[in-house]
């Protein structure tokens, strides 16, 4: 007994320390500013995150999966009959996120020391990065929605600052602004949801909300409304239709930022939030259906758009959007642990891919257009190999990490509806295709840049390659913590999370389990589709050495060239390539650029316009002001006295 008490108080201290380290790092770097020499500030930042990681790992090993630790640091808001504490909740879900954030965060910090070398904003970069980690930790550690909201706003702010980090280019500012506006739309949803929760339950505490909500009937209108509002928040942060366009634009930030914030951690906050509120969402199956539809749509659409992108980071960005959609599909199916599992594996391989692309960009001194790359495999071997591993993982080739998590979600979709399974599988095959299109265009063939730049290509220093290698290893073995049911072994990950997701499992209708045979077939089809897609990509971009068109005018030329070859090509072109290319271009042009952008921009424009108009009322004429005042008075009187 005594032993337990000391143990839990030790854990409490450790968990408090987790966010403290990055905060200290932020303060040191932020306050000392340029007085800290370049590598030192980088190391301060990295070590702060490493220390958090060690704490998180210690908690992971000491706290049993069945237990959770919740404590209030101080009584934060005591107001009217409302009491909100500033407290932490440490349970398997939190620990999972903690390990991902601090672990991958540390690797990316390490990577950045080399990547950002020589940048004049070096210290500033690490200051922001540590601040980001701090807020992200708050987001996942809080024991109520308000603490989460603080983290939520904080990471949004850091993301905004980091996207616009290289502020000399105007484009970056616009990207930062766009990200900001879209996130605000989402935040509005979250905020309203929070208010509604407060109104309905009088508390924001996770446990209390989960407890209280079970007193309502399933699909109660209010619960559906609240969950929809919260989901709007998640859509903004996790880049779902229609609030996703900021994420590709956010690639204007430095690559480590893209890896950390826009791939591995912040964008998964929405998924974490829904998984954290799994009981709430399970009580509103109608919302889950909405999530499923949005997830599927995002997953497919982003995958199609990804086919046509020529910027190495944009490809990865759309693939992130697509994978996030996949995670929402899992959430929409009520498979919260599967969604979280994909969050973890995705964090491994997407961070790897981004850092790999960063290494490529670094090697080419800032070139991001894949059409100007080619044959890089010869020059930067480590990057090449790790990038392939990442691509295999995202494509879902066994035994890489992505295979396990993707397969799990695919199986779940099949349980729900084979039609959705087909759509999602298709998008998964598209993912494999465009990832390998990227790989082949970038790394195989001949270098297409100038001779002068070719001579300068070099492998990145150890600080860049070591994180790549570690992430590559994680991408290979990461999947084994969640083995599929057919192996007969335990699914370590879902067992670990079961104390969190278990509560909602009882509410949701029991899904009928697939037979082993069906499951084998599903896996077989998915893997086969991925491999075929890869082979098609290989055929198109290696064997035939096709290149993406540089402009619309050239597109026709390329297609003529293609049509002069085999007849098979023509059929293939007419039936598969052309429609897909068209569709991809079409969606990108119309849905993405025209529709989504315009809706979002339209809202901004209306606000802008009304601001402009209202401004003109301020004519500068005192008489006019007085007149307006008298009119206001008369109107007020008339309203109050006569009506």
């Amino acid at each position, binding site marked *: 007994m005594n032993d337990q008490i000391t143990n839990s108080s030790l854990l409490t201290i450790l968990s408090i320390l987790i966010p403290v380290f990055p905060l200290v790092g932020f303060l040191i770097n932020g306050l000392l500013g340029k007085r800290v020499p370049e590598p030192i500030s980088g190391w301060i930042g990295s070590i702060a995150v490493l220390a958090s990681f060690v704490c998180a790992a210690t908690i992971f090993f000491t706290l049993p999966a069945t237990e959770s630790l919740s404590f209030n640091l101080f009584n934060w808001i005591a107001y009217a009959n409302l009491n909100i504490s500033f407290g932490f909740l440490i349970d398997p879900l939190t620990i999972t996120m903690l390990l991902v954030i601090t672990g991958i965060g540390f690797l990316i910090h390490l990577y950045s020391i080399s990547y950002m070398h020589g940048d004049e904003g070096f210290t500033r970069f690490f200051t922001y990065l540590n601040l980001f980690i701090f807020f992200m930790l708050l987001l996942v550690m809080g024991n109520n929605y308000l603490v989460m909201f603080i983290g939520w706003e904080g990471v949004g702010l850091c993301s905004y600052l980091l996207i616009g980090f290289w502020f000399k280019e105007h484009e970056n500012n616009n990207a930062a602004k766009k990200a900001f506006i879209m996130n605000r739309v989402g935040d509005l949803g979250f905020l309203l949801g929070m208010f509604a929760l407060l109104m309905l339950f009088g508390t924001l505490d996770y446990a209390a909300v989960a407890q209280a909500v079970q007193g309502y009937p399933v699909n109660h209108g209010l619960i559906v409304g609240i969950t929809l509002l919260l989901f709007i928040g998640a859509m903004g942060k996790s880049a779902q239709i229609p609030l996703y366009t900021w994420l590709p634009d956010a690639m204007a930030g430095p690559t480590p930022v893209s890896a950390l914030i826009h791939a591995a951690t912040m964008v998964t906050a929405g998924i974490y939030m829904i998984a954290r509120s799994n009981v709430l969402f399970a009580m509103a199956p109608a919302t889950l259906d909405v999530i499923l539809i949005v997830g599927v749509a995002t997953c497919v659409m982003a995958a199609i758009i990804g086919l046509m992108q020529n910027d190495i980071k944009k490809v990865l960005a759309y693939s992130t959007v697509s994978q996030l959609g996949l995670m929402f599909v899992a959430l929409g199916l009520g498979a919260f642990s599967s969604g979280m599992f994909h969050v973890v594996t995705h964090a491994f391989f997407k961070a790897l891919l981004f850092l790999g692309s960063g290494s490529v960009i670094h090697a080419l001194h800032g070139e991001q257009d894949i059409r100007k790359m080619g044959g890089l495999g010869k020059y930067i071997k480590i990057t090449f190999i790790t990038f392939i591993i990442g691509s295999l993982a995202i494509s879902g080739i066994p035994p890489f990490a992505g295979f396990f998590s993707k397969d799990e979600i695919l199986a779940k979709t099949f349980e729900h509806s084979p039609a959705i399974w087909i759509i999602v599988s298709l998008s998964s095959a598209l993912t494999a295709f465009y990832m390998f299109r990227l790989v082949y265009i970038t790394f195989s063939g001949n270098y297409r840049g100038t001779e002068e730049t070719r001579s300068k290509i070099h492998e990145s220093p150890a600080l860049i390659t070591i994180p790549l290698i570690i992430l590559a290893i994680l991408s290979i073995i990461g999947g084994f913590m969640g083995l599929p049911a057919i192996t007969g072994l335990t699914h370590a990950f879902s067992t670990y999370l079961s104390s969190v997701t278990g509560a909602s499992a009882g509410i949701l209708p029991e899904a009928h389990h697939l037979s082993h045979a069906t499951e084998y077939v599903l896996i077989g089809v998915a893997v086969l589709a991925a491999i075929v897609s890869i082979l098609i990509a290989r055929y198109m971009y290696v064997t035939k050495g096709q290149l993406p068109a540089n402009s619309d005018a050239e597109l026709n030329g390329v297609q003529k060239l293609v049509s002069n070859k085999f007849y098979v090509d023509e059929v293939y072109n007419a039936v598969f390539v052309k429609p897909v290319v068209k569709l991809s271009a079409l969606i990108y042009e119309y849905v993405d650029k025209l529709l989504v952008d315009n809706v979002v921009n339209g809202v901004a424009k209306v606000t802008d316009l009304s601001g402009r108009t209202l401004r003109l009322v*301020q*004519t500068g004429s*005192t008489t006019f002001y007085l007149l307006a005042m008298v009119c206001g008075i008369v109107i007020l009187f008339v309203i109050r006295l006569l009506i």
Partner: protein
Amino acid sequence: MENALVSVPHNWYLLLSSLLFCIGVMGVLFRRNVIVILMCIELMLNSVNLLLVSFSAYAQNADGQVFVFFVMVVAAAEVAVGLALIVSIYRNVASTDIDSMKKLKW
């Protein structure tokens, strides 16, 4: 003399001061010369004084009359400051037209 007003209902005084007040307001809105506007504001304050005194007289309560003193103090102070402002502006722009002061807008 003392009986002259006995038959005048109080409402008439209310009416008179409202009318004076509105004349003041309209004067402020119509005129362009800042000095005239200032005088119209004085008129508004005076209508209030009249109102206060009439209330005080009809209710046999001296509080209203005391309050009028404070209104006068404030009116005097306002006029002093206002005219000082006008003089200081006139030195710069050589005009007392309110529409010549439209630089700050939007």
